[in-house]
Structures are given as C-alpha cells and as structure tokens.
C-alpha cells in the first residue's frame, strides 16, 4: 500500500491513537502469558500469596527444572511435535490437491461435493468418539500414535480443503490456461504455477490446523492411555490433581509447551499475514 495514500499516513493524531490502542490490545493479550510466566518463576508459597506479586521477589527456576527432570514432559512434547507435524503435512498435501481439483477441474456436482466435504467437518467431534474408539480397538490401532495422525488428518482435511479452495478461487484462471498453452499439463500447472503463488494461503491454513492439533485435548485423551504416547495437551493435566492444582509446575509446563507454536508463527509470520490479508481483501 502506498503510504501517502494511507489514511494512517495522513492523520498523525490517528497514528498516535492507533499505537496507543495497539499497545493496549497487546498488553491485554499478553497479560495472561506474562502472568503465567510470573507464576512459573515463583515458589510454591508465593504462587498463592495475597496480594500477588506480578514480578516475583524470589525468582526460582525450580518449576522448570521439575517439569524437565521429574516428569515425562519431553516425551509428551516429542509426541505432540511428531503427530502435529505429520498430521498437518499429510492433511495439507491431500487438501491442496483436492482444492485444486475442485477449483480448476470441471467436475459434475462440484458445488455439491464441496459442500459435502465441508459438512463432514461440521459433525461434532464428540459424536464420533465412540464409533472411532470401537473401530480403533477392532483394528488394533488403539493406543498408537498412528491413530492420532489418522484421526487428525481426517478431521483437518475437509476444513483445509475448504479454506484452500477459497484461496485458489481468487487466483486468475488465466494463469493455468497460459501454462497449459505453454505446454504444461494440469498437474504440472498445479505444482509449477498454483502452489508457488498460493504459499501464503496454504501456510496460513496449515498453521491454523497445526494450532488446532497441538491444542486438542478430546482426541488425544480418548485414544491414548499409555504414558509414552500421550500428547502435551493431555500431559499438562498431570499438574491438575485430586490433591490440588500445582500452579507453578503447570505454568512452567504451559510456558514451554507454547514455544514450538510461537517458533512456528515467527518463522512463517510473513506468509501467514499475507495469507490472512489475501483472504480479507477481494478483487
């Protein structure tokens, strides 16, 4: 956007106001995270102290040390990274191909098929739990990470297909047509032309799915009972016990568990913003 034509550029007062509002929004958004970090750095008795200390007077790393050395936290992290990575990659690959076909190929009942795909993701996950549970027991997949990957892939693919179809529909059909005239097959046009220019959209959709899988509790808690295969979302619950909530440990574990997602966002920030903006502006 040309800065001279921007309304923000023309109105210094509004710029200042915008900055203030953004700072306010940032503080409100970040406060729970900072509060969590502060709790993680407190001793047990300081956690429930009243009035509370925002910056702990006695900072300790004991909670972080305990999380890493006295529990299976790293196993949960490894499982989450593995399941999220494979699940999202597979779902994204499948969805991208499906979305391309639905957007650029002349398929009978295309709209109906698109809607049907979307409908499958509208079924509340909890309604599928019992049949999936029984199926997994019968197939001997219960208590395996591959089951989690299959379930997450199946659940995220319809939504990803729908989102990517939205992105692809905004691309000019002429690009594909020009590619075909230049000798590209439709398949090659997808890999050579469509995929490179759709990266922001694909990355945004994949990133949102990754956050969904990373945070999901329902599926990961229902299909895994052995400790060695639990995901981080389930593992965090070990600090909420019948004997009380271990706030310091819980917050330390939460702080560490959000790091991979933060890293993912930071690395893919530019493409994510482009992708979100592409979805926001028509024409």
């Amino acid at each position: 956007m040309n800065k001279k034509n921007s309304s923000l550029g023309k109105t210094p007062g509004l710029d200042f106001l915008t900055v203030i509002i953004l700072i306010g929004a940032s503080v409100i958004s970040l406060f729970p995270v900072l509060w969590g970090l502060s709790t993680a750095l407190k001793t047990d008795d300081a956690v429930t102290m009243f009035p509370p200390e925002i910056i702990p007077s006695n900072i300790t790393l004991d909670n972080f040390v305990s999380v890493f050395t006295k529990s299976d936290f790293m196993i949960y992290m490894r499982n989450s990274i593995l399941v999220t990575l494979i699940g999202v990659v597979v779902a994204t690959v499948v969805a991208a191909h499906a979305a391309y076909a639905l957007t650029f190929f002349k398929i009978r009942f295309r709209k109906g098929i698109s809607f049907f795909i979307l409908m499958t993701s509208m079924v509340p996950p909890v309604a599928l739990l019992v049949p999936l549970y029984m199926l997994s027991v019968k197939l001997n997949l219960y208590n395996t990470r591959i089951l989690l990957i299959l379930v997450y892939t199946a659940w995220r693919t319809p939504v990803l297909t729908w989102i990517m179809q939205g992105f692809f529909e905004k691309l000019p059909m002429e690009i594909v047509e020009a590619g075909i005239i230049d000798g590209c097959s439709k398949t090659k046009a997808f890999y050579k032309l469509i995929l490179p220019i759709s990266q922001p959209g694909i990355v945004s959709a994949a990133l949102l799915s990754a956050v969904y899988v990373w945070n999901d509790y329902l599926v990961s808690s229902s299909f895994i009972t052995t400790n060695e295969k639990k995901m981080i979302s389930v593992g965090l619950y070990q600090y909420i016990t019948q004997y009380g909530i271990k706030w310091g440990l819980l917050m330390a574990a939460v702080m560490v568990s959000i790091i991979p997602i933060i890293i993912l966002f930071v690395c893919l920030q530019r493409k994510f913003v482009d992708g979100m903006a592409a979805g926001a502006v028509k024409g």
Partner: protein
Amino acid sequence: MKLKHLKKTVSVLLSAALIATLVGCSSSSNDGSDTAQSEENAEGIDMTFWIFLDPNSTEDPRSVVLSEIVEEYNETNEYGNTVTVESFNYSEFEAQAIQAAAAGTGPDIINCFSDQLMQHIEAGTVQPMTEYAADFIDEMGDYIHTADKLTQADGEIYSLPWESRVTTLWYRSDIYDTAPASWDDLLTMSSEASTDLALGFGIGLSEDGNGAGLIETFIPWIHSAGGEFLDEDGNAVFNSDAGVQVVEYIKELVDNGSMDQTMMNMSYDDVVDAFKSGTLYGVNAGTQRAATILESSYADSFETCPMPGVTADDPAPAYNAGQTLAIGAFAQNPEMSMDFIKFFLSEENQVKWVGANCLPVRTGVFDYDEVKENPMYDDMMEWSEYAQTGEITFYPADYTELCTELVGAVQKVVYQGADAKEELDSVAEWYNSK
C-alpha cells in the same frame, strides 16, 4: 535429466521416510521389550492397571510410592505376573473407563473413587470380587472397613478402599482463638474474623467440580442436624427440616459476613487456594489436600478440627471417602488381579502410603516406628479418629448430576432469597421422579 532423476530419488526417499515414521509410530505400542518380558515370564500374565497417578512422575510422593509398589510386585510375585500402570487424569477417569467397557475392553485392575464406584458398576467397568475380598478383609484384621459396609445392594463387593480421606475444618489459629465447636461458634468467630481483604470462612458454592465444594459440607451438616441425604433406597430425602436448616445456616453465614457473593463462583479447588493465600481464614476440605495446603506460607498457623456440628457436644459426623481398587470387568484372570490388590493393601505398602501423606485404611500401620516419625502423625491420628464418626458411602451413579442441581438450589436460596424448603423440594422431586 539429472535434475529430474535427483528429484525422483528425493521424492522416493521422503515417502519412504514418512512411511517408516508411520510404521514406527504404530508398532511402538507393541515393541520388542514387551514380547521379551512375556517370554521371560511365560507362566505369569501381563496385567494393566488404570489409576489417576502418574508412576513416572518423581515430583509427587504418591506417584513415587505407586511406582515402588508396582515395581516390587513385578519383581517378587510368585506367579511371574507383571503389572503395567496406565495413568489418566482424575477428571476424565470415569469417562475413559466407561468408553473402554463399551468397546469390550479395559484394564485388569482399576482404581475407582468411592463416590464414583456405582457409576463404574452400572457401566460394567468392574466385576464382583466378593469371593476373594470377604476372606481377605477378615485376614487383614485391622482394616477400617467391614465386608458388610463394602457390600452393595446386589450383595456383592466390588472394590476395596486403599486410602482414606475425611473432610475436616481447616482454620487459621492466629485468627481463630479456639477451634469452632458448633455452628454458632463458627458463625460468630468467622463473621468477626472477616475483613475487607479476607473472609472468615468459605464454602465453594460453584457448580464446578460437580459441586463438591458444597456437597462435602452439606452431607455431614445434614447428618448433624438429624437428617439424611438419601434414604436406603437411594431416594432424595434432603428436603427435610434438617436440610432446610443447613441451607438456612449457609445463608446466615453470608448474611453475617462470614462469606460473601464471591463464593458463588468458587469451586472446591478455589476455596483451598484462597485459604492457602490467606484470603479465607477457614474452609472445610479433605485431608488428602493436606500436603498441598501445607505448602502455603501461612502453614504454621493452619490447624484442623472436626467439622462443627449443630451443637458443641457433637461434631458433624465425618464425610469419608477414598480411592478403591477393583477388578476390571475384562480382567484376563480375576484371581491374579486380586493377587495384586492384596499386595497393594499389605501393611508394608500402607506404611509407604502414609509416607506420601495418605491416610491409611489399616490401623496397624500407626504402630510402625517410621509412621510415628512422620511429621503429620498426630494429625493423621486425629483425622483417623474423627473418620470413625462417619462411614464411607457409595452414592448412586447419577450422584454428580444431583450434586450440581443441589448447588443451583442453594445458590438461589443464599443469593436470591428463594425459599429453602421450596428449592430443596424441587430438586428432590426432580431426582426422585427420574
């Protein structure tokens, strides 16, 4: 051409890596170590044990004890059995067990909280153990529960408690001059103790946590007032004069400033945290919370006493509960499951549980020197003595639903001025007509 060839090779390698990873994920559930172990113990069986404690955690002393007991059993049992612990969070434990039973599977040994045992029985997650348990109870001699009390309506015993817990009044000795002995004492002392920053007493009146904050106080208090919560047939009878008296007393606590409106949003966990933080000077809480409560910087001023009753002479009869062990409905060999349960309940292992601040179910352990050396020995003796004023109760399967409804009714009386009798009648009628 070379580039094309290279791309193909890379694609094939990536695909192979992906497939290998997936195969690795699925096969890890049945790795070589399991097979090797079962070959080694050809005569024994590999059993699974579902419990809410995580045996791999070295941070929680209870988890450490669990791990030690299981390890010892695996090494010493005469049959060559092995037990593998699978841990679930307590909040999802019942759902997981019921789901598994519906799919025709489940563990060999299962831990059930006494309040939820009937839920397990109805869902078919456990099987009767009467033929093994009745004799074992006699053998133990010092077990705090009798076979009669553990026998359910169908004449069967389904589980054996391995730890005990009793709800007591926790109060601040620097704020309260003496332990409140009656409702009047508690009302007077707690209202005088309340300040702008702290309340003299608190009951979690939120529906969160199935309303346990209220129920664990309501039931002993209704008993103290001469009433019953449920009758022998499981019908709600808390809408009696005694029930009304309890609800009106809770309202009085609010009206007199001992508690305030914030209690409506506070769960059991919240009131315990508030007590630890010094914003509540008294709470009714289970003894299983002791270790957590004593982490507070005010711990030196914390005291416990029996829950005050209507009159100073008689404390409210104790609200007892506990974790129990049952044989899973799909156990491979119930006798072997029972063998592990017997080992779990041995006096030596009960001593270990005391070391992890669990109230034992065998009184003989109080004679052990290492138990006498426990810093909480005197408290445990006191709690154990108080526990004898009540009995462990197994509530119906829809107990949690009832509790949530009852909390709603009490909220209406306390904070909206509704009539106590009408509200209790309404909940009792709803429950009895189900």
